[in-house]
């Protein structure tokens, strides 16, 4: 009899904090500049330099702890993690080992209709390393230290995640919480949020944990999903065919091009990090008052927001989930509702049209006012829904008021029954057979006549009104 296996996943997420300057020096943290322009003796690790901790780093770490339900360790300390790698100038990373800034915490996740609470183990502060620039066909590698010293928090989860979908849902939820709180912009593509996945399989019912594999190098939520699915099936194959022993504790690289996880060069020695307390930094001492004052700066977090939006706007959970995933979209939605008073319609437009557009755009290309007006014009019957879609496309490129665009495009719907009277009458006279058929009981003829009417009105007839008038006329 074949055993059933379940997947056990824990995540280690590195998040770059939204500070202006680096964690231990006053260099800028800006992304995407020429190599090494944001460096100084401290982050370059020159002889004789010393680190000084950025106040805002502590603030944001505590804020993250507050937002994620963690316990804040009022006294915590920095430690050195020693290893050699070209992107690490001092040959040690200043991190936190046994006394991190936060312990515990949790994130509630909804995936594939199931609700799970993913518990966190800890959050700690550390500095980022530089970046290696690998070049094809060259005998050298380039090193850029701009990123070296950028402040990070590392969030570690308990192995509470059970599927790729759950992992992605967790990351999305975590991202939303951190972005809403202003702690980080969490852009996986830019590296301000990085996830390492620890995954193992075990027979259902087994309480212990089997050998886990670490997967690195996923640059988007999609890749996380694929990588987890791939690794899951790789391990499942091995276990199913009695080769479970071949699952070894190792780090595997997700190779997007190949669509596989690949074993990285073994770095066994690298695991002896020889942690010891950082002698150049006194302990981090926080008081309860400070923690509470930071908590007070937390905005409405995703879960709260979701509850409120469901209640206030009467929207379904699934719809709200989509709307609040990105802070910008949530804000846009609520602003649109303020302007239009139409929650349902606004939600529909945003979910179908705006999000479609956002796949290629960095910013929302129309204003809440413009969309609100569009919604209202449709509601009033000024334009048909079909016409509205055309107007929408134009609004993306223009800052003008919606009414003006509608006017310009001549898309005003004919909604007055009197105006339509004539057109419809004309159609009935031109199609006596259809009229007769309808009166004889063939209901399809109505559809045919509707089509003719809409055509005759050059598509401008308000379908609702046309139907009304047609019905009246046929009824008589």
């Amino acid at each position, binding site marked *: 009899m074949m055993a059933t296996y379940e997947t056990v996943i824990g995540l280690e997420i590195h998040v770059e904090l939204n500070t202006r300057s680096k964690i231990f020096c006053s260099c800028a943290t800006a992304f995407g500049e020429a190599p090494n322009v944001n460096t100084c003796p401290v982050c370059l690790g020159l002889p004789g330099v010393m680190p000084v901790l950025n106040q805002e780093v502590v603030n944001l770490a505590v804020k993250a702890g507050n937002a994620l339900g963690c316990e804040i360790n009022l006294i915590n300390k920095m430690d050195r993690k020693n290893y050699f790698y070209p992107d690490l100038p001092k*040959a040690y990373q200043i991190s936190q080992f046994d006394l991190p800034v936060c312990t515990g915490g949790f994130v509630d996740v909804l995936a594939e209709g199931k609700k799970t609470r993913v518990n966190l183990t800890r959050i700690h502060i550390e500095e980022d390393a530089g970046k290696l620039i690998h070049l094809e066909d060259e005998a050298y590698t380039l090193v850029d230290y701009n990123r070296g010293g950028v402040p990070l928090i590392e969030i570690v989860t308990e192995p509470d995640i059970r599927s790729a979908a759950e992992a992605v849902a967790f990351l999305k939820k975590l991202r939303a919480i951190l972005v809403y709180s202003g702690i980080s912009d969490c852009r996986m593509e830019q590296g301000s949020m990085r996830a390492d996945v620890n995954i193992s399989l075990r027979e259902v019912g087994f309480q212990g944990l089997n050998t886990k594999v670490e997967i690195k190098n996923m640059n988007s939520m999609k890749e996380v999903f694929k990588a987890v699915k791939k690794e899951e099936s790789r391990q499942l194959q091995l276990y199913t065919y009695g080769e479970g022993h071949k699952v070894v504790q190792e780090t595997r690289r997700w190779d997007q091009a190949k669509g596989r996880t690949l074993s990285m060069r073994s770095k066994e020695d690298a695991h002896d990090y020889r942690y010891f307390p950082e002698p150049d930094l006194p302990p981090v001492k926080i008081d309860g008052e400070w923690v509470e004052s930071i908590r007070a700066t937390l905005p409405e977090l995703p879960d709260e927001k979701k509850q409120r939006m469901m209640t206030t706007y009467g929207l379904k959970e699934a719809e709200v989930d989509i709307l609040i995933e990105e802070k910008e979209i949530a804000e846009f939605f609520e602003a649109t509702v303020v302007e239009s008073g139409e929650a349902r319609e606004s939600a529909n437009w945003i979910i179908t049209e705006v999000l479609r557009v956002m796949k290629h755009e960095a910013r929302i290309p129309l204003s809440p006012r413009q969309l609100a007006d569009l919604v209202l014009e449709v509601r009033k019957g000024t334009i048909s829904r079909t016409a509205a879609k055309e107007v929408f496309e134009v609004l993306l490129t223009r800052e003008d008021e919606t009414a003006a665009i509608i006017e310009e495009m001549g898309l005003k719907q004919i909604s007055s029954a009197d105006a339509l009277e004539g057109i419809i009458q004309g159609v009935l006279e031109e199609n006596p057979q259809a009229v007769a058929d309808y009166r004889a009981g063939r209901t399809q003829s109505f559809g045919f006549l509707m089509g003719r009417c809409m055509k005759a009105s050059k598509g401008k007839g308000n379908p609702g009104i046309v139907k009304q008038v047609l019905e009246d006329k046929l009824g008589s």
Partner: protein
Amino acid sequence: MDIAKMTIKAIHTGLENKDFKAEEVTRAYLARIKAFDQGIGAFLSLDEAGAIAMSRGIDEKIQGGEAPGLLTGVPLAVKDNLCTRGLKTTCASRMLEDFVPPYDATVVGRLRERGAVILGKANMDEFAMGSSNENSAFYPVKNPWDMTRVSGGSSGGPAAAVAAGFAPYALGSDTGGSIRMPASFCGLVGVKPTYGAVSRYGLIAFGSSLDQVGPFARTVEDAAIALEGIEGFDPKDATSVEGRVRGGYTASMLSGVKGIRIGVPREFFAQGVDPEVKKTVLRAVKRLEALGAEVEEFSLPITESGLSAYYMISSAEASSNLGRYDGVRFGYRTRDYDGFEEMVVKSRTEAFGQEVKRRIMLGTYVLSSGYYDAYYKKAMLFRQKVRRLFKEAFEVYDAVVSPTVPVLPFKLGEKTQDPLAMYLADLFTVNVNIAGIPAISLPAGFSEGGLPVGIQFMGDHFEETKLFRIAYALEQDLGLNLVPELKEVK
């Protein structure tokens, strides 16, 4: 002007009274260095042009009516592990033999602001690891009192420079005795300030929780002036302490020692201490008693374990601090290599000296998994114990006295084959660094053979004031002649 005998005080007075010019003083020292340093090896590099230009600028200012500060126009030697912008800073290692820092250490910056004239960078044990200055990658430093003997280390260069009259004062660094020990061997005053009293920013790190920068001088007053010139909070050094440094030592040191309680820890005078050292130091203690101090013997059983704890902590920190030397962004890079790993391993192996490698290995070992608890953790626990024991002692005594070094200055090459024997020279100095307390070493007398013997006073955190009081009283009473005869080297 007998430049070899000049003090900071004397130079300052002369400049103020316009008896001579700063440039004359600087040139006189430079000439003396050129005449004698070949035989001593105190300097690794000289900045003649810079020193003369600086002194000229000072003269212009004085000419223009500016009153010179105590350190204005006064030349000094700076240990070569303190970063000096634009001047090579080598730590006496092949690894940094052509390293030119883009910034000044905070203490160097402060002295420059006060108009100090940096003559050059002084020799040392490589990366400050050593007790005899025989570990310099370039050449050893000889003791100006007897050039067949060591100057002590690791700040052998600064000590020898002052003792030989190449500068009235110098800056050194002390991690386990590296100022006090050469001060003792070279017949000088050497101060290791309270940990956190002086900025470490720009001091190339060896044992970060132990290192402190401090002055060498021939008189207690000069040492006090120099310390006042460099101490104080630095926002670039997160371990530097705000608002605790007292200052004003040159005034407060004149109060005498009546009623000062001095503890004599018997373990520091036990077996293993050279009988001449013991005799000379105890004689000095007796002098203090005659001057009104209350002297009492007590037990402070920390020497042996302290040495062990010190070597573990300092090596551990050093192994981490020296990881950055890989030839990538600066420093020595090996010629032939295949790939990054090899480049790093070969560069480090070729450029680091024996003792440095030994300590990196020792440090890596005591931190490695499996050994951390047995060695490093125990050392850190013992460290807390030492702090407590000193605190208890200072509840009773104003200062604790001991010989600075258990032995007389030894011959060059005498202890180089036995690392342990060399480490034992630090027996009486290391616990001071472990506890982070201040200590001062000054000459207590000479051996029959004319070799200097140093006496050490240890005080509670930020009690440098008391130490200067005791040292000044003793110095004035002993009235030793502290200028050795040097043979000119042709």
